[in-house]
């Protein structure tokens, strides 16, 4: 029992910390790209401002409009957050530092990540607001469209690694000596990153939030701590999907040439560094790109990404069998 509690505590704390670090990175990255100081006052050069932000949201009034579907409205943020935290359970920081090394690790991760869609859709539906509804529907359409390329991109990795366990995938990359992104999964990696960006609803795929069109999309009616949960989940999702991407494609907790017997010590540092690099790319994209239109996003998913990922699977399979 204590074992489980420790693991759950570790999970929640690690995911929350990841989210906070990514928030700092996003906001500081934004201010850097926009030639302005950014947050400066809380902590050393404003670097612990997310804590102040959290405190601010917690003490704010949690406004629930009268017309909303109360239980659904109240529970929707929880769905989103649970799906994010559960996703983190299978990400290995080192061969031993992993909450659950499941046999079907990546399968579990992809299945759980769809759960968040329910939260977003119900948030949009229950808000009794037309903008929220449109945001929710956009989110649903988008998440369904991008779930497919996400899964298909992973299939290539699974074929190459011959396992679905995330630890197994990393071990295979150590065995090969190079991460999969070098060893033939470049296309898969790109598709995964694009689909993951859409999955976490970040620019240029942030139509469900689309503040210039839908004010705040499915989050419009939320305030106080419930809004905070959505807000943190967004960054948690970003953190975890980046961690999964680095595990699948960038060699996870290991870098070539480092001695494998010390992996338990440097593993977490290596993984978090890779995650942060991917996260920084997402930050750079967010603050430099406009937003796609909903139909253009669907076109991109169904006409480009899915065929490309199918070809990627085919090529990977042929290479695997042939060589």
């Amino acid at each position, binding site marked *: 029992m204590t074992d489980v509690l420790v693991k759950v505590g570790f999970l929640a704390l690690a995911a929350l910390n990841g989210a906070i670090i990514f928030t700092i990175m996003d906001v500081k990255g*934004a201010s850097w*790209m*926009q*030639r*302005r100081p950014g947050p400066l006052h809380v902590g050393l050069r404003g670097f612990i401002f997310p804590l102040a932000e959290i405190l601010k949201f917690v003490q704010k009034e949690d406004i629930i409009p009268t017309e909303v579907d109360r239980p659904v409205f109240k529970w929707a943020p929880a769905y989103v957050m649970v799906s994010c935290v559960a996703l983190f359970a299978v990400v290995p920081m080192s061969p031993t530092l992993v909450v659950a090394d499941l046999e079907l690790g990546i399968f579990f991760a992809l299945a759980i990540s769809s759960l968040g869609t329910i939260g977003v859709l119900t948030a949009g539906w229950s808000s009794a607001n*037309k903008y929220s509804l*449109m945001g929710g*529907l956009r989110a649903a359409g988008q998440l369904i469209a991008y779930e497919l390329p996400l899964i298909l991109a992973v299939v290539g990795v699974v074929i190459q690694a011959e396992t679905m366990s995330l630890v197994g995938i990393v071990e295979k990359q150590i065995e090969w000596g190079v991460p999969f992104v070098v060893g033939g999964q470049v296309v898969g990696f790109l598709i995964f990153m694009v689909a993951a960006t859409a999955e976490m609803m970040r*620019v*240029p795929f*942030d*139509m469900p939030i*689309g*503040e*210039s*069109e839908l*004010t705040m999309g499915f989050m419009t009616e939320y305030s106080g701590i419930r809004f905070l949960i959505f807000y943190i989940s967004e960054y948690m999702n970003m953190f975890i999907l980046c961690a999964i991407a680095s595990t699948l494609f960038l060699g996870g907790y290991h870098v070539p040439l480092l001695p494998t017997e010390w992996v338990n010590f440097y593993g977490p540092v290596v993984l978090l560094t890779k995650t942060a690099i991917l996260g920084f790319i997402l930050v750079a994209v*967010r*603050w*430099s*790109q*406009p*937003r*796609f*239109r*909903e*139909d*253009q996003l669907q076109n991109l998913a169904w006409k480009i990404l899915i065929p490309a990922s199918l070809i990627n699977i085919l090529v990977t399979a042929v290479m695997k069998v042939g060589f």
Partner: protein
Amino acid sequence: MVNTLDPQNFNNFSEASVSVEIETEDMTLNIGPQHPSTHGVLRLVAKVDGEKVYDVKPVLGYMHRGYEKLAEVRSYPQITTLVNRIDWVAGFSNEIPFIAGAERLMEIEVPERAKHIRLILTEMARISSHFVFNGAYALEVGALTPIFYAMEDRERVLDLIESVTGGRFHPNFNRIGGVKPAAGSGPTTKKDIQDLPAGFYRDTKVAMQKVIEAADQFQNLIGGNEVFKKRTKNVGILTAETAEAFGVSGPILRASGVKSDLRTLTDYLPYDQFEYDIPVGENGDCYDRWDVRVKEMVESAKIVLQAIDSMPSGPLQAKVPKVIKVPKGRTYVRAENPKGEMGYYIVSDGGLGPYRLKVRTASFSNISILPLLLEGALLPDLIAIMGSLDFVLGDVDR
């Protein structure tokens, strides 16, 4: 709508590629007056089917301040304060046609130097207005960064306007017969009136060079962006005929391919002394409207640089009576403002103030095409099209 389940329509049924049509109801979406992308308090009542917009009715008047009526109880020098606030993004250029109208009725010849100063400040107002458009438009199609660049660059221009007039947005600088002595020029004596602050020429040259650089940067940062092109090209196409029929003017008209610019057509300011191009678009889509404005910024900067070099010396103010009374008569003076044609129809009965003042503003006529342009557009396009018209609510409602 064909009921495909009706046995009589079975022929249609077998031929149709989509077999069952679901009966749907259009949703009425109320956009604004409090909405992040309506530039203030414009309200659009849109009928939407999913993401598709079928019918749009703009509702105006949330910012009506009754300037035309107020002008009837104010004297001519007082009215410049009012008209500053019509299109607040380019405050200075609102004063010009009104002052020019009053001067025409009084038959005053304005000194060349005053005209040049007016021209320089008008072009600066145009540049600052287009900077705001650039940033805001990028924001509307979802790019969050360019507005910070635009505001930073605009501040250089506003600093110059402030150094001359004392105000960033509402200069209130024109006087009937000329301009007032500059704010930053220090103590003045009657004999030696300093009109421009020290270092103005040097600072302007630097700032205008920066404007040209900034326009180039926008062409790369926004115009070169694939997503931006996808969002704006072939969206909201406005043909030249429709634009002219609806009384659309300014950059929007020119983006539709009509080379019409009041700076060359009328003589309210000495534009004929300078060389500049009039950028014209080809397709009349959102991208062209954006592109024309960015190119206009460069042309305006060039005009300012030329005007600085050829600045004539002489008095700032023509001889005018102490109490300004405009003789009986009526006149209409129009000018090319950043948003389009702005005109004042002044009816004077010989008193201290106008008997009637009709203000023709660009934004009001420009947004009259909104229902037409938005029909059949998608909701994100609605924002993109609306943003590309670059209206200011103060300019719409007055």
